[in-house]
């Protein structure tokens, strides 16, 4: 029983990271109807920025905040320069753009900081949380930061004017323009926020998976799985999906014989395909109808 609780809690902790990645993916999907295949690489790059700042002696939380600001600005810059011109291009061209971004960010990170594995600090420590063996303080910190972030985002979207405008622009761009919303900048803002959310995920998971240019590959696949499970049109669904996937991954690894570390990605694959085939809108998403 203790093993079970332990695995569920550990699953919630990693699930928090998946939830962040899924949320970042959904924010961009809501804004431009495309999946950002480079979301993980952008998060990885942000994490390297944080690491570099700390190497230069910047205290952890300052580095954290500076990285968020950098990621936010970087996300906006990428959208303005690379993806805004592609807004009306075929889907294929956009997919190619994301792949190109993926390759560039990965390669530049490798060239700048090389491909060796680096330790990443945690401000929470890794001792048992509140004296209990069930969960470490870092894991508790991951959950805490994520929940805090989610509450802030909820308040932002529900109670601020710009949050309302962003929701409107995402759900019906044409109507949004007709009430005077600059939808193009709302998209850029979405990119900035997604990039910053990804940065938080990267910084939180880095002490667990270690810092290197390929650290987010698996995390992103799980983020996609979470987003698809929750429904790509539902930010709340993406978050719930993240936690569900985290717990599912841990329980499957523990209780299904033969599913060790090596099968984790195939499980995510199976999950993505199963959900897409059985319920393409996800658990909380809205079905979308196409007309000729």
């Amino acid at each position, binding site marked *: 029983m203790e093993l079970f609780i332990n695995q569920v809690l550990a699953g919630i902790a990693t699930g928090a990271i998946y939830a962040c990645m899924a949320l970042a993916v959904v924010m961009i999907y809501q804004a431009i109807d495309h999946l950002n295949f480079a979301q993980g690489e952008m998060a990885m790059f942000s994490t390297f920025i944080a690491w570099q700042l700390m190497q230069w002696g910047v205290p952890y939380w300052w580095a954290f905040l500076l990285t968020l600001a950098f990621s936010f600005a970087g996300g906006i810059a990428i959208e303005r320069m690379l993806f805004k011109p592609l807004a009306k291009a075929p889907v294929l061209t956009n997919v190619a753009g994301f792949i190109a971004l993926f390759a560039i960010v990965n390669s530049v990170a490798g060239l700048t900081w090389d491909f060796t594995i680096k330790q990443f600090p945690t401000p929470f420590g890794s001792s048992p949380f509140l004296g209990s063996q069930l969960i470490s303080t870092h894991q508790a910190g991951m959950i805490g930061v994520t929940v805090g972030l989610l509450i802030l985002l909820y308040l932002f979207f529900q109670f601020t004017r710009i949050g309302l405008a962003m929701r409107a622009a995402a*759900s019906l761009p044409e109507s949004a323009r*007709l009430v005077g919303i600059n939808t193009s900048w709302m998209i850029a803002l979405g990119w900035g926020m997604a990039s910053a959310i990804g940065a938080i995920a990267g910084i939180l998971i880095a002490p667990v998976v270690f810092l290197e240019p390929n650290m987010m590959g698996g995390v992103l696949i799980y983020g996609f799985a979470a987003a698809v499970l929750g429904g790509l049109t539902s930010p709340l669904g993406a978050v719930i999906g993240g936690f569900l996937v985290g717990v599912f991954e841990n329980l499957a690894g523990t209780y299904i014989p033969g599913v060790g570390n090596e099968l984790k990605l195939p499980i995510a694959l199976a999950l993505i395909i199963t959900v897409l085939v059985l319920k393409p809108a996800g658990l909380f998403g809205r079905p979308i109808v196409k007309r000729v």
Partner: protein
Amino acid sequence: MTAMLNIKDLRAYYGQVQALHGLSFSLNEGSLTTLLGANGAGKTTTLRAICNMVRSTGAIEFEGKPLSGKSTENVVRLGIAHVPQGRGTFTTMTVEENLQLGAITRNDKKGVVADIERMYEHFPVLKERHTQQAGTLSGGEQQMLAVARALMLRPRLMLLDEPSFGLAPLIVRELFKILGKINREDKVTILVVEQNAQLALELADKAYVIETGRIVMSGSAAEIANNEDVRKSYLGY
């Protein structure tokens, strides 16, 4: 009276296809004008061209300022509210949020709160449902909401694209009564595009008839309503 909106030689294109072939007309301040025409005549395109939602050439002047080259949202910010065909309701948001969105460009918080109350007076049904998702409203209620949302801008000019579409006759009558009231009391200039010519002509003081992208007739609503051709083609008697 001065012309508030002046349109000269407006041509609009969808890709290679030309939809408007040199349209010219003007709206007087405070007037209620209707643009009549059959399906595909170019009524909707005219409204979309005013808001720069379709590629067009020609001159569009609003209160003496040219609109060409301005993005849709900047045209709206000048005080031109557009109620699109199909109403453009934000279906996943509440009624109240829809109204707030209408006023999203305004900075006077108190004024917005007061205007929302005023809309609830105009349209009591919206007050009853203000926390409901707008997508759960009936077609008529959504049309009321769309008009209310447009009014939240405190527009100088309001463009309506077939407000009667898909509504029961009684509801259309009620809606048009409210439009007339808004025009008189709030001094909002209104341009309404309609297929329901009879009602539109009862409501309007001026009318234009448009056929295949050209204005073919203009005059006071009464003149147009009495015109033989119009009666045959659009009024059916």
